[in-house]
């Protein structure tokens, strides 16, 4: 079940648990997948010799964990620099220094903040709408097999829509402006929320329900103290997954038809063939999204679920 592994949003990939048949050409997703099970044990695979172990040990000890993260970054930056100077030339691939300069420029000019807030605002607003639509839908699906059968198909279709479809359709329907991205975000969030909430409803602990009944608790109390807390972990899981999927689709939709926001800026730099600008926006964007995904959301979840710590 969705469990404390929520907080193990570690830097190690772990196999995602029990996926439902929902799948589709989203930007790589498993919509209703429950959260990752325990991270895979860091085993030595066959072929690791004794000398390899010594080397690893030495390196690990010498640098420590944080050092390795920095080290990894350094490797990437170094190869980038090398490629840019010696392999392809700086017009094609600007050096890390040039890109960094561009990022700082964006920061100081305020452009970064302006477009970031536009995109983040779009995502939040769209998600709120999607969650508001998905919550009652999920409850309906969770409680009634009839509705589950009826709505499952269309929800799967919604989830399977490729980003390009969103881009084109939103542009066709809403033209330029923020409406398209907001609707896209809502359409991405809604099925995730619905499915996971349905799962949560089905998983409500019957013993707790019966306990509440034997103490003659009112319906409102049961909803407030038993149902809603039971659903919350599933809700959070769905928001986390929806976010991981949704920001990529919002990016696409913004590339197609926004007037502000990160996707818009990425398109703008693309059209003016400013590779350094494009890389600057891309890196900042991804850094921000990863930060939200891995740090902000995880912290919020930890706070809400601290009763699990035990």
């Amino acid at each position, binding site marked *: 079940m969705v469990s404390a592994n929520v907080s193990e949003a570690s830097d190690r990939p772990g196999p995602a648990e029990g996926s439902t048949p929902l799948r589709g050409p989203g930007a790589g997703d498993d919509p209703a997948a429950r959260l990752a099970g325990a991270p895979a044990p860091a085993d030595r695979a066959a072929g690791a010799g004794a000398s390899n172990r010594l080397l690893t040990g030495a390196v690990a000890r010498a640098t420590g964990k944080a050092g390795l993260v920095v080290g990894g970054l350094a490797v990437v930056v170094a190869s980038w620099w090398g490629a840019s100077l010696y392999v392809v030339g700086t017009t094609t691939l600007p050096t890390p220094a040039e890109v960094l300069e561009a990022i700082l420029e964006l920061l100081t000019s305020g452009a970064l903040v302006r477009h970031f807030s536009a995109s983040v605002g779009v995502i939040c607003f769209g998600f709120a709408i999607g969650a508001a639509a998905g919550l009652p839908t999920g409850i309906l699906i969770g409680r009634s097999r009839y509705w589950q059968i009826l709505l499952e198909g269309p929800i799967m279709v919604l989830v399977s829509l490729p980003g390009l479809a969103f881009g084109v359709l939103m542009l066709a329907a809403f033209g330029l402006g923020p409406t398209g991205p907001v609707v896209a975000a809502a359409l991405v969030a809604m099925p995730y929320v619905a499915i996971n909430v349905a799962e949560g409803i089905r998983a409500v602990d019957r013993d707790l329900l*019966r306990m509440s009944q034997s103490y003659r608790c009112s319906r409102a109390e049961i909803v407030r103290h038993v149902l809603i*807390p039971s659903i919350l972990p599933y809700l959070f899981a769905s928001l986390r997954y929806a976010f991981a999927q949704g920001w990529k689709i919002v990016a696409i939709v913004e590339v197609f038809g926004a007037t502000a926001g990160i996707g818009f800026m990425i398109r703008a730099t693309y059209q003016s063939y400013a590779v350094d600008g494009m890389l600057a926006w891309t890196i900042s964007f991804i850094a921000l999204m990863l930060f939200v995904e891995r740090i902000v959301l995880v912290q919020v979840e930890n706070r809400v679920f601290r009763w*699990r710590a*035990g």
Partner: protein
Amino acid sequence: MAAIEVRGVRKVFGTGDHQTVAIEDISFSVADGEFVSVVGPSGCGKTTLLNIISGVEKATAGEVVVGDGSEVRIGYVFQEPRLLPWRRVLDNILYVLPGRGRNNRARALEFLGMVGLEDVARKWPNQLSGGMQQRVGIARALAVEPALLLMDEPFSHLDAMTARALRGQLQDIWLATGLTVLFVTHDIAEAVQLSDRIVVLARGGTVREVLPIELEHPRLSSDPRVGALQAEIMGRFDDVPSREAVGGTR
């Protein structure tokens, strides 16, 4: 404090071809302030009986009269603590108390104190041991100030030491409050130690016999008369397992 009258209760689950008779026919009575145990093998409908008495389920036939027939407050202690894991201990007790108000908090703390857990009021259930969680469950049942306490194998999932301690505490509480207690267990030794009478059920849900236990209270499990009575009764019911017969802890 309430008396219980169980008359000809019958419970059938399912309809048509797929019917299971959980309770064939059970009749017995519990006097006001009495401690009565119900023992029997698994499948004799003990939990169903409790559910019917507490009103969570309805009997297919027969009737159950609790107290004078009007709405009676009932405390229910289950096998598992059934605490809301996302609420602190104190809030778990507040959950079952009607209405709001300052008095409730004081009451809840008082009953937590009765089981010796006033210190953990702010903790989460996950932070407590199994025995402590069960004690919270007992405190919760007592906090509604019930006329009747229903207990469904409350100590069966605890280790022997904790169960022993809790049995002693339960006895003290019962002697202090004069509650009517209906106590379901599969452990005859436990029933002998605690109850005024033992209702023995047979598989399929009928009353096999009713045994009065005429030792005075409080009873210590170390009292040799208690032990002798336990051995004698257990000898008569080879098919009803008890802790000692099975050997070792659960």
